[in-house]
């Protein structure tokens, strides 16, 4: 225990030194070299970040409100993608008929980078919320289907056999054997899907929108306001990290019997 604590203190110490070194190098670089023409100092970025918590970026929304707009889009798109993806993935993995019909069509869509849907979404749905939901949906959907399908394919046939032998009917076997053994795979898919969705919403907002966190960095670019871009990037990174942690936590709570690699 003591050793562990000491080790933790040690690594914390090194992390702090590392981060301090970056910040100092960054500040020195900005202050004394021509980099300063382009980049703000970390202190300026922090100040601006604090400032935008209560003051609007753009017309009326503050930084947290921009984040909320983007998160709302992600939540809607991602939930739709999760529901559809899990259903299709399991159906494809368990029923050969569904697999035969849907797999070739899915294989057509799968290799397309989700960002590439943006122009088509805009032509189809305009630049409103529907287009963004569609883009986020596509980003999450593909990942979730791929993983769920893999999970449903590897359900242990012996276990199914045992369930049937003990008198379970199709439905019971499905809910007590198939679904639980898919759950870790579904979570893996949802984790990748969520981070892809977070990236897709940025891209969608950068291409066309009037609010949201992705818009704040493109607006910064258009005004040549590097500080605003950095504020946006930091906010994006922090929220992305929080989303990942949240998924991890949900996985740990919801499927305790099998935690994937830590």
């Amino acid at each position, binding site marked *: 225990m003591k050793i562990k604590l000491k080790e933790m203190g040690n690594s914390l110490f090194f992390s702090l030194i590392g981060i301090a070194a970056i910040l100092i190098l960054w500040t020195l670089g900005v202050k004394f070299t021509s980099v300063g023409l382009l980049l703000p100092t970390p202190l300026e970025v922090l100040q601006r970040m604090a400032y935008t918590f209560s003051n609007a970026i753009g017309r009326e929304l503050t930084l947290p409100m921009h984040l909320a707009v983007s998160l709302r889009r992600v939540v809607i798109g991602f939930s739709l993608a999760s529901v559809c993806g899990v259903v299709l993935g399991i159906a494809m993995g368990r029923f050969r008929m569904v697999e035969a019909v849907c797999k070739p069509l899915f294989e057509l869509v799968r290799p397309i*980078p989700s960002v590439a849907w943006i122009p*088509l979404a*805009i032509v189809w749905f305009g630049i409103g919320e529907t287009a963004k939901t569609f883009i986020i949906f596509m980003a999450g959907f593909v990942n979730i289907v791929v993983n769920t399908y893999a999970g449903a394919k590897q359900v242990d046939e012996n276990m199914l056999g045992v369930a049937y032998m003990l008198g379970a009917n199709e439905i019971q076997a499905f809910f007590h054997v198939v679904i639980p053994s898919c759950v870790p795979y579904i979570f893996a898919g949802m984790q990748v899907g969520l981070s892809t969705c977070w990236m897709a919403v940025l891209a969608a907002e950068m291409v066309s929108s009037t609010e949201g966190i992705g818009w704040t960095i493109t607006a910064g670019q258009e005004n040549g306001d590097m500080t605003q871009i950095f504020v946006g*990037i930091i906010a994006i990174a922090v929220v992305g990290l929080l989303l990942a942690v949240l998924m991890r936590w949900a996985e740990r709570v919801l499927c305790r019997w099998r935690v994937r690699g830590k």
Partner: protein
Amino acid sequence: MNTEKLNTAKKQKRKYQVISLLSVCVFLLVWYLATAVFELVPAYSLPSPVKVLETFITKFHSKAPDGATLPKHFISSLQVAMSGYVLGAVIGVPLGIAMGWFKVVDKIIRPVFDLLKPIPPIALIPVMIVVFGISLQAKAVLIFFSTVIPCILNSYSGIRQTKQIHLWVSQTFGASNMQMLFTVAIPSALPMIFAGLRVAMGSSWMALVAAELLASTSGLGYLISIGRSLLRSDLILVGIFSLGMINIVITAIFNVVEKRFVRGGKAE
């Protein structure tokens, strides 16, 4: 008896293959009927599959309306992707290995890496545009970022997952630290490293398309964004499908290379 079983299994398989084929045909037919025959949707939003194919073929030699042929766009995208990707892999993989093997490197680089890791590369596009303009450089640096992070991450955890027993054995036989790294740790990390290279390919391709949508004058992403501003969805679809096809080809190449170089199972 056994051959009979095999035969029915074969028949079953053939049946499902026929269904798969039919499914694609029905999809194309419905698409064709909805667009070309009944005109349920306006042609600018969804062209018929025939039109898409026509555009695809004419784009091979025609420069209109975006100033370059399809192969040219393809080469320009590929050039950017490769320059960033190769750089990212060449730096990322050894760095990840070093971080996994040498505690000192880990301690120094880890905090920097943890700071950069959660930033989606797409968010860096505006910075790149301000710093480098819309040149090849800007995109190459962007792709470098989206490659280097998964490469480091996977090589690192690959090395970290080396079986302790294998290391003990080599130690018992008197291997030096370097010998242990090159003959035990790296070969056993290879599947993970390859998985990282794959992930990196996917994410760098995505970053490239995003960069080309936002600011560029050539490339497949540029082609689809022109298609959007001219309301030529046939052009967009041609671009999207070409992107998909390239992805398939790249995956196939990866499979071949992996089979050739990696012994022992694939990483999950």
